[in-house]
């Protein structure tokens, strides 16, 4: 592989000091991004710890992407499955998968293309290396939008959120709100007809009257009486053969992802567990009242539908926007679960709450951390006060 490494070195030469294109030296950061993708650099430690852990941000991010692949693949299959189910047409596995492939791959390409393009631009303009944060965001975005979202809308939303939710704050590691969710929120408020309702969740739902694209939550929120008319079983919900955003329907696939994140230690188990406890608590409270369809819906089934599981596993655990202290993570996760179910039941306009719950808690996370850290500071000051008091 030496030749490849040399090729990269040669590619950078004209932009280095004394080279032909010296004044465009910032282009090096762009080339570097590809070089470091292929080769872990020959950088060695100088002071302090002479050895370093094998992990780096590329490994971390690639594991998160790996954890999302089951969701992506299942989403591709489910796209076709829902489509043909509604049409009442028998179709083979490949025909179903093909629909998903054709519809979802462009979403992935647009998401990465636009997002990474902006990241490269900013990095070269500001003269810093390109960080890996967007690799995960770029994969999250196609998984949380409806399948028929027009590509230009997606592009606009990605551009908006990468610039205004991330780069203006300083790029990877500095953002306050989850970038993927900001993209979704932008789409939701800018193009509501493409983001909610009972037509958009199944491919061709908007153009073909034979297809009803309503989600379970949509059905539930419209329901006045009992739950008998529900079209799906809990098993369907768990496996994910229900309408919904591209990659969020299958709790099974999400659990595989969660297992990968937890075993590798990359996702925070504290946040995942506390969010489930929070969601369960709110669900139980609503079950006790049971005033409408959503309130009657079993607390544990609440976690199988909508974006709850996906949000909790992949978005709430985003370390940059979550609470950073271990105590804070418990509070943060609990409130996300709690509020997600609450918004789901009480919000008349839109029967899902996980997106808004996470975004809200993103904003609140620094406050939670502030009080946790303040507690530590108070303890230290108190210790000193006691000490001086006894000394006198």
């Amino acid at each position: 592989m030496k030749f490849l490494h040399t090729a990269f070195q040669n590619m950078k030469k004209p932009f280095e000091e004394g080279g032909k294109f010296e004044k465009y030296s910032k282009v090096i950061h762009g080339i570097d991004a590809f070089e470091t993708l292929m080769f872990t650099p020959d950088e060695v430690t100088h002071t302090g710890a002479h050895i370093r852990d094998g992990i780096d941000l590329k490994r971390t991010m690639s594991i998160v992407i790996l954890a999302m692949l089951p969701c992506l693949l299942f989403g591709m299959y489910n796209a076709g499955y829902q489509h043909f189910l509604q049409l009442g047409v028998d179709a083979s596995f490949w025909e179903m998968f093909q629909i998903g492939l054709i519809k979802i791959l462009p979403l992935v390409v647009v998401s990465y293309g636009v997002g990474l393009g902006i990241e490269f631009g900013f990095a070269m303009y500001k003269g810093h290396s390109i960080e890996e944060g967007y690799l995960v965001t770029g994969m999250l975005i196609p998984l949380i939008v409806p399948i028929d979202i027009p590509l230009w809308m997606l592009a606009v939303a990605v551009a908006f959120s990468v610039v205004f939710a991330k780069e203006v704050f300083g790029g990877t590691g500095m953002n306050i709100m989850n970038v993927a969710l900001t993209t979704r929120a932008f789409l939701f408020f800018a193009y509501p007809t493409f983001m909610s309702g009972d037509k958009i969740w199944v491919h061709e739902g908007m153009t073909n009257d034979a297809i009803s694209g309503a989600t379970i939550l949509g059905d539930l929120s419209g329901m006045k009486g009992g739950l008998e008319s529900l079209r799906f079983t809990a098993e369907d919900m768990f496996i994910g053969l229900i309408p919904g955003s591209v990659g969020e329907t299958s709790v099974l696939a999400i659990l595989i992802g969660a297992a990968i994140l937890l075993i590798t230690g990359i996702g925070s188990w504290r946040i995942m567990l506390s969010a489930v406890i929070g969601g369960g608590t709110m669900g139980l409270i609503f079950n006790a009242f049971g005033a409408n369809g959503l309130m009657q819906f079993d607390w544990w089934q609440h976690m199988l539908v909508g974006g709850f599981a996906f949000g909790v596993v992949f978005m709430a655990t985003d370390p940059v926007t979550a609470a950073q202290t271990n105590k804070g993570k418990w509070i943060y996760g609990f409130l996300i679960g709690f509020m997600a179910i609450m918004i789901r039941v009480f919000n008349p306009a839109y029967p899902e709450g996980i997106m808004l719950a996470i975004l809200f808690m993103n904003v609140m996370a620094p406050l939670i951390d502030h009080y946790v850290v303040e507690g530590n500071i108070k303890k230290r000051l108190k210790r000193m006060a006691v000490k001086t008091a006894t000394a006198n």
Partner: protein
Amino acid sequence: MSKDIKIKKGLNIPLKGEADKVLGTAQRSETFVVKPTDFKNFTPKLLVKEGDEVLAGSPLFFNKEYPDVKIGSPVSGEVVEITRGAKRKILGIKILGDKDTRYTEFAAANAASMSGEEVKQRLLDQCLWAYIKRRPYGTVARPEDKPLAIYVSGFDSAPLAGDNDYILHGKEKEFQVGLDVLKQLTDGKVHVNLHRELNTDAVFKDAKGVQINWVSGPHPSGNVGVQIHHIQPLNKGEVVFTVAAQDVALIGSAFLTGKYDASRLVAVGGSSLKSPKYFKTIQGASLSTLLDGNVEGDNNRIISGNVLTGTKVSADGYLGFFSKEVNVIPEGNEAKFFLTEGWAGLGLSKYSASRSYFSWLMLGKKYGLDTNTNGEPRALVVTGEYESVFPMDIYPQHLLKAIMIGDIELMENLGIYEVDEEDFALCEYVCTSKTAVQQIVREGLELIEQECG
């Protein structure tokens, strides 16, 4: 009242090349170098010039701020060279050693019959004071300090560190005298902290007049800073002293015999060594006397001290003032292809505290890690990582950020007086973003010392 301290957070990095408990014979070093850079926040003023004759224990230089604190020569001989760096900073004082060491003359002394002031004066006169460090800041103790207590860690939990049981075996008398000396310096207690699960030599177990505390758990349980935090955390304005176990014996022997004997047992380890073992040598000795013929390959990092906190030295370098081990590991100055050895590989030869490489399945495997950073520096993204290897009631990442923004009040509130950079060594090791954590902490400590004294 002995304390029982259970450390849960931490990490024992499984490294290859632990020194066998065999004493190798090192050839005697011809030249010796004392490096003022081994002392933190220390401005050296020379007391010798090239051509001067010195005895073992003769002062070579003193601290400009505290002129009583003098650093002694490890051997007798002639000062042959004073190396200087940028801005004429003194980097080293080289001494051509005599065949037979002659010592400065001091009478044997019994600390128990001396007052605290007399003991202090003797330590300062005999150039022994420099072995005593103070917290906060981890610098050499100041003569006017009134320490609340003195802490001696009986074991070193760092990877490839020397085993004090082996090193101090049979030195009961020196160690005990050293402890007696330390006792005169404080109105409080002298603490000796030992590991509950490791074997403990009689030299420690039979120590008298001290409080023995038992610590269990992984590195950094042997760091004296962690032990202090759990025994009696330091408040602003308080001072404690710390002395390394080997140096306690050195002080003891100087009181017993009157001689400044800077010889020590050094653990020479690391995966690049053919046969890692212990050597008896003298502080400041040339490392080639320990390493010649024992190192594999020529692309190696030689570290005076341990792999987490030591100093990089060249092959013709010298043993540091406080260094109790020399480690040699491969340099990692070659790019690694992403699929085979890089970020996308299975990573069977990569050790990680996370389980992100499959190496975590190979329990008990030891690794010959190199000096590659395994990735580029990045913004701080991952959280909870530092906390998992930082067994103190302090928020390491928040403290680090407070240092980065230079907020002194916040640093104080978050506990900077309780830490030294070595306590952050594992944080630096595990950091996904490859942040120079120890350097940042050192800068913070220096800022605080400058501003708050």
